[in-house]
């Protein structure tokens, strides 16, 4: 029996596969929000001080408050000025403002 020639042959049938799309997502940087403490100047002067982090802070006068990085706070609060003359004693240069 002769083959029917009008029947389409699908031998080479292929389905176009779509290439997977890889979205380029932004890099997630886990930014830890810097922690600050408000530190008040107790010296009646314009005071410049450098913390252990190397950051430099400047207070414009007595009672001025500046944001200080957490790692620098302890060192600054430990600073003392003045001496023991005549019944006096060294007094702190800074205090926490909150």
């Amino acid at each position, binding site marked *: 029996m002769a083959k029917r020639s009008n029947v389409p042959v699908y031998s080479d049938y292929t389905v176009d596969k779509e290439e997977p799309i890889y979205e380029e997502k932004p890099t997630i940087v886990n930014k830890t929000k810097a922690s600050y403490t408000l530190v008040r100047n107790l010296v009646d002067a314009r005071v410049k*001080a450098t913390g252990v982090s190397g950051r430099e802070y400047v207070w414009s006068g*007595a009672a001025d408050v500046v944001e200080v990085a957490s790692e620098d706070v302890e060192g600054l609060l430990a600073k003392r000025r003045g001496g023991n003359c005549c019944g006096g004693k060294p007094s702190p240069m800074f205090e926490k403002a909150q």
Partner: protein
Amino acid sequence: MLVTGTPIGTVTSQEELYLEGAPYLFFQDAIADPLYNPDSDGYYYGMSATTLYPVYQVGCPEGVTLTEGITMNDIQCDNIGVKDTVQRRNFIDLTLTIRSMFPLTTLRHMLNLSAPNTGTGYETVGIGSINNAKYYMVYAPKVYDDDAADWILFHFHRCKFVDAWTIGMALDGWNVSGLKIRAYADDNKPAAQKFGVVRRFDVDALP
């Protein structure tokens, strides 16, 4: 009867109590409120340091004297002479010499120097014009019996460091002489204490 010449009636004699040595000296911006502002009797005295208005202690004072400036006007009658003297108190002067120079952030008030800059390892003050708008309270307590906690204090409401200072750079030690704290009348205080207050604390003597 023993004749002593003592007046009859109530006689108040002075105590056998003699003070020695200088009081401690503190000063603070006159804008600050005194510790007792006022006390239950209406007197203003004492100090309380604040962040904005620190209290400074004068280091190692010597030769402290307290005196006053008054104006005396004799009422002279040409027929009988001076009949009276009218007096007016103008100011109180506290003069002293100090042996301690540092910190400059304290000394600069006494020498009328400029606002300081300070940082790790340094402090700087300028020698410029004198700020005539700066007034201080001065507080001078003197404990004369440590065991009994008896003491006396002087408090002056509105003072200024006046007169020319001299820094003696001697071999036996530097000093700053010529320091004079002048206490003026403070209009905001009651007339009876417009220059200052003296208070004594002594439970034994003042039962």
